[in-house]
């Protein structure tokens, strides 16, 4: 190879590595965490700018160039600065852009932020020299190495490869850890994740910040290689190229993201320039760009999961094979739940009207009543999914009325959903593991410490999960995606998931709906055992035979109020209750 060819090859590989790093960052945010970062290019750019101004010496007087800092730091400090700046910017932007619940709203806000930033950087000449940008940024060690024309490019490729390897290692660790599982669960169903103790906004912000830092590092490396950076290098549209890359490559799969970077940035954007010219240069470029659009449509239609779909985390092989331990009881005894004067109205209608009751540990209470009586609403009010208009919800000694659902659930108040709410792209086993609290790897820091740090605890949990699966006769489906199960099976997954969450107070919203009679008995058996183990349980259920078999006492609600309380037998002879059902 001639030196020029070597340079070219090395350059392409450097770009591939840099873009892969960026794609891994975006994949972490969007593919794993579900955060639709339409400001992505902004983070690459802030990294590039900060690296530049930390590398450059202070702007010399008389030279028509102005920029902040100019600290002239030795390598690799500028890159560290870039990572910090990317993280800080993401923290600032994410703290408000992640406020709307709808992800496309979040995306719009980020797009807007990206445009505001581009306008400001272009017009504020004092920051990064405005529209002209920065140039003559020295390459790391370039003065001290004598490697010849292409030699330096290979050297730099080596540097970038090290960074890429570190980022890959790092993102793989995060994705594969219990924390990564929590993020994927949040991506699949934010509401359910919240009910299991995930602070959706906080976790989204974390993954946004980490992705921002990674993007910034990619920008820093790029600017160190090319030696110049200006607003022309980061048009808002470039964000979409990264999105195309990870969607085509495969969301949630780091190899897919790498492949997407190769395909879209490497092959697709480089390859057309080798094609023979057709028409004017402008027409040709337009046709190529339009072809990218068609490529996106084709992929979204025929292969929405990408070339390399998200890897299935098949964990069943780690489950203990024989002699499952007895099903888990709650690790601590239950807690008293007392509700007083709980009220909530919707558009003038009192859905829940001054409801009061107290549930003791070791008891199971049924909550029944005709449709529209306010049972599910009451459950949601207790769990924090709805904010009560008045009243108290005391868990142990803490009034949690008005708390966010994930905070309530961290006190051990675990709720199941009336409509199934499985994490569709997690396996059944992962659904169970995602709910278990107290995992050492279930935090950013913990996930970084690696498998050895969190595997012992995961083994315990796997054993628990194995026992549950065996009980519910779902062992065969442990590695199946929860989204592929039938309605009844999904219901079971949800119940098992709630049991894995070590509840102290379990709130069940129609757990028997869509479950066949045999399995109902299994569920009932479990619930009874949990109750006997000291758990506090409240169950909304239409299947009154199940209520009778599981619950010690039953609360009847009608029109938002508590109508009566007693055992099922007592209620059956209570005229008022029968009338509530028969008359209303």
């Amino acid at each position, binding site marked *: 190879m001639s030196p020029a060819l070597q340079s070219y090859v090395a350059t392409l590989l450097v770009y591939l590595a840099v873009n892969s790093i960026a794609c891994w960052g975006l994949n972490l945010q969007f593919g794993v965490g579900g955060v639709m970062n339409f400001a992505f290019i902004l983070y690459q750019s802030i990294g590039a700018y900060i690296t530049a101004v930390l590398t450059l010496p202070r702007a010399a007087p008389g030279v028509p160039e102005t920029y902040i800092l100019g600290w002239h730091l030795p390598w690799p400090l500028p890159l560290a600065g870039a990572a910090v700046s990317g993280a800080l910017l993401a923290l600032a932007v994410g703290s408000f852009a992640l406020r709307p619940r709808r992800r496309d709203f979040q995306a719009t806000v980020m797009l807007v932020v990206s445009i505001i930033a581009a306008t400001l950087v272009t017009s504020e000449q004092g920051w990064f020299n405005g529209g002209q940008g920065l140039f003559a940024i020295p390459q790391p060690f370039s003065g001290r190495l004598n490697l010849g024309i292409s030699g330096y490019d290979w050297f730099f490729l080596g540097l970038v490869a090290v960074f890429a390897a570190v980022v890959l290692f790092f993102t793989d660790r995060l994705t594969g850890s219990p924390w990564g599982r929590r993020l994927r669960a949040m991506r699949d169903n934010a509401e359910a994740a919240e009910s299991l103790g995930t602070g959706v906004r906080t976790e989204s912000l974390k993954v946004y910040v980490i992705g921002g830092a990674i993007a910034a590092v990619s920008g820093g490396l790029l600017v160190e290689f090319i030696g110049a950076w200006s607003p022309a290098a980061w048009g808002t549209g470039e964000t979409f190229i990264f999105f195309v890359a990870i969607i085509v490559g495969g969301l949630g799969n780091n190899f897919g993201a790498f492949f997407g970077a190769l395909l879209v940035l490497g092959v697709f954007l480089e390859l057309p320039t080798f094609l023979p010219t057709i028409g004017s240069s402008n027409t040709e470029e337009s046709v190529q760009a339009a072809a990218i659009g068609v490529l996106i449509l084709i992929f979204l239609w025929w292969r929405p999961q990408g070339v390399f779909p998200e890897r299935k985390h098949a964990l069943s092989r780690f489950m203990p094979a024989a002699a499952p331990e007895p099903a888990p009881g709650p690790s601590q005894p239950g807690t008293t739940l007392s509700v007083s004067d709980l009220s909530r109205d919707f558009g003038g209608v009192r859905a829940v009207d001054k409801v009061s009751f107290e549930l003791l540990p070791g008891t199971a209470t049924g909550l029944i009543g005709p*449709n529209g009586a306010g049972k599910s609403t009451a459950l949601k009010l207790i769990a924090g999914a709805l904010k009560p208009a008045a009243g108290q919800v005391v868990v142990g000694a803490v009034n949690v009325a008005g708390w966010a659902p994930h905070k309530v659930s961290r006190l051990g108040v675990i709720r199941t959903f009336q409509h199934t709410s499985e994490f569709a792209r997690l396996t059944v086993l992962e659904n169970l593991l995602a709910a278990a609290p107290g995992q050492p790897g279930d935090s950013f820091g913990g996930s970084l410490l690696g498998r050895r740090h969190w595997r012992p605890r995961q083994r315990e949990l796997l054993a628990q999960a194995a026992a549950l699966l065996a009980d519910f006769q779902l062992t065969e489906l442990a590695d199946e995606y929860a989204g592929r199960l039938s309605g009844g099976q999904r219901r079971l997954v949800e119940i098992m998931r709630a049991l894995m969450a070590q509840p102290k107070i379990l709130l069940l919203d129609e757990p028997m709906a869509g479950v066949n009679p045999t399995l109902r008995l299994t569920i009932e058996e479990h619930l009874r055992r949990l109750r006997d183990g000291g758990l506090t349980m409240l169950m909304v259920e239409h299947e009154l*035979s199940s209520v009778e078999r599981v619950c010690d006492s039953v609360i009847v609600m009608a029109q938002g109020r508590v109508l009566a309380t007693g055992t099922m037998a007592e209620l059956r002879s209570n005229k008022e209750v029968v009338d509530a059902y*028969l*008359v209303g």
Partner: protein
Amino acid sequence: MPTSLAEEGIRATLTVEGLAAGYGDTPTITDVDLTVHRGEIVTVLGPNGAGKSTLLKAVLGVIRPMAGSVLLGDRDLAALRSDQICRLSVGYVPQVRDTFPRLTVLENLEMGGYTLPRKAVKARVEAVMELYPQLKRLAARQGGHLSGGERKMVALARAMMISPALLVLDEPTAGLAPQPAATLLNDYIATLAGTGVSLLMVEQRAKEAMSISDRAYVMAGGRVVLHDRADAVLARPDLGEVFLGRTGPG
């Protein structure tokens, strides 16, 4: 006025035979037979989860039957969408989401007459308003800002816009206080039968519903477990058990 089957004088307005339906691949209801004759009020009773709503949805074309037939007169409804079924003179009052929340009461009624010729709508609105005089006062209110009873009345009036041959009501009194529920059943629904419309109603308030019904079907576990004249059904001593914990009558 569309030619309604009622006017054609076909005896059985609705005939359901061997119907199975549900969500996904498992049927929620199986082997349901049911008829509604002209001018008759037929009520389907049963505890929650018995499959009553599923039955109605299958009749109305919201979900496709898995087996069996649904005949309106001699017309098979099984392959039709709900807007097409409406055009065959079937009115529907859903249990929840029964009015267009951001349309006014007047507009709700007009939408009820969507399938009527344009010119006929105004006269028909007036006629329906005469039927339910309280609606005049509410005409300009938005559907979402009504009380439960008012909303149900609007939904009923809206369904009456097309002078349906068959009117399907899904738990019309659910969520209503006893007084408005009684008014709704006795003053509004009961009187409809006299106008020649056939009614198929799902209801939880068995006693009151029976008092205005001609016949009743009791469903449990996705099947019809009891079928008789309304007064006979109400007289069954074991009715309470059907609702509160047993899966079938003794």
